[in-house]
């Protein structure tokens, strides 16, 4: 469904150029949940922005259902890490979710039911008339997820969406994403630096190298579904996969530490 072919991205030119994404190729099947993990600062966010059509890659291409992505595609929705910066503080929760639907050709009733269904799916129907900043961090990120769902995407891109919430909330949000994936039948590309999270959520993990990043290894995750925060994480297979991904990433971090004593700025946050 989504194909990333030899994608690379360099910021700037000459001596100040930052080579953020080296040469990345992988693909995602219809209905699949793919997690991209990599050492911190490896260019994950840059890669995601290129896939989302927000940044133009320096070379290579992204194909969505065979069509080349040159700008943000209609079938794609994005959830950012910083919920407090991606939700409009002057709009109620309802209007935030409604925002991406306003320019779609829909009737008033259709819009309303999309907003309500999306908020119901994330358990926030009772908070429609609040402002986002009146809610906790985890609830704000659920509003952002609801907004993406209401947009009715076929593929959902998530950029470290749970990096700034506490561990308890994170577990709940992970299960919520798995649940809405089944309910809405969407494909998900999920970027994270959390190895446990990547193994727990995905059908396949794409492990990246340090910057300029490339695909180190693609690891199929054959854990039984539905996933469960306790039972799944007790499985020997979970421990094996987690250790495997951990070693890959750790090795990359060590290489980076040797090669680059001074971290390169401007690649990722």
């Amino acid at each position, binding site marked *: 469904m989504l194909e990333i072919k030899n994608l690379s991205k360099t910021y700037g030119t000459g001596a100040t150029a930052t080579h953020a994404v080296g040469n990345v190729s992988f693909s995602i099947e219809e209905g699949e949940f793919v997690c991209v993990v990599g050492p911190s600062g490896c260019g994950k966010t840059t890669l995601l922005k290129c896939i989302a059509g927000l940044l133009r890659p320096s070379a290579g291409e992204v194909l969505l259902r065979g069509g080349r992505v040159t700008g943000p595609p209609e079938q794609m929705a994005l959830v950012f890490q910083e919920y407090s910066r*991606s939700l409009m503080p002057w709009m109620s929760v309802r209007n935030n979710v409604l*925002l991406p639907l306003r320019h779609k050709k829909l009737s008033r009733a259709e819009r309303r039911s999309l907003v309500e269904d999306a908020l119901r799916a994330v358990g926030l129907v009772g908070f429609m008339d609040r402002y986002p900043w009146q809610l906790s961090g985890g609830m704000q990120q659920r509003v952002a997820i609801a907004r993406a769902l209401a947009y009715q995407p076929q593929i959902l891109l998530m950029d470290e969406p749970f990096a700034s919430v506490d561990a308890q909330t994170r577990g709940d949000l992970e299960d919520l994403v798995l649940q809405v994936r089944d309910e809405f039948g969407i494909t998900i590309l999920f970027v994270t630096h959390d190895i446990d999270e990547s193994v727990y959520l995905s059908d396949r993990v794409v492990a990246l190298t340090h910057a300029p990043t490339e695909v180190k290894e693609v690891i199929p995750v054959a854990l039984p579904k539905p996933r469960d925060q306790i039972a799944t994480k007790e499985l020997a297979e979970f421990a094996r996969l987690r250790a495997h991904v951990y070693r890959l990433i750790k090795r990359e971090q060590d290489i980076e530490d040797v090669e680059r004593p001074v971290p390169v700025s401007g690649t990722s946050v």
Partner: protein
Amino acid sequence: MSPRVYRTLKIGAEITVPFLMLLAWWLYTVQRDDPKFPRPTTIVAEVRNRFFFAEFDLHVVPSLERIGLGFAIAVGLGVAIGIPLGLSRIGRSAAMPHIEYWRAIPPPALLPISIILLHSIGNTQKVSFIAFFCIFPVLLNTIDGVRAIEPTLIDTARSFRIPAHERIRRIVFPAALPQIFAGMRTSLALAVIMMVLSEYFASTSGVGYVLLISKNTFQFLPMWAAIVLIGVLGYLLNALFLLVERHVLAWHRGWRAATPR
């Protein structure tokens, strides 16, 4: 100190200080008995009789109308020009030198030429004059407000393919609104000053006109009355503006209080 006592003290201080000043002024004028310094009670009576009754339509209404129109035009144009300039770096390069140039010119320097250029000594000239100088605080604050928009908000709008006009209306404008309001508040105070100034020159009506004529004819009572009225007008306009701002930007105060930074 309990909050209630604190509140009472705060309001008390707000009222007591001006009251004491008025009292001192009154005592001074009673003791001086000088026609140049009428008693505050006499001035207040003059304000009431002259401006609120006898000459309300003749002088107060035209002044308020000029402030209102001049301010409204300045806000409208300031926002309409400021948003595209805030969005476009090339636009800013083209426009900023001109903005800085005209902003640097002292308003009285342009007063005579405004009459010639506009072929008018009536409301057209006065309103344009007020609007011209009130535009700058709104314009510059709009530009800054638009430039300071959180990039993630713009990325969000782009990823949802929100069309440009919707993006400006629903994201850029509200995001810049707190700063636009800061500029509007400065402009409003400026509008009162510009109103008085414009009525000093080639005018037959307005509070500023009364001030000038009574000064020139040594009529101290109407002169003082005009000064007091202008002060009260400025104070009330600002109070009214803050009331509107509190309502319109309620989300901003809540958001700022809720967001650690």
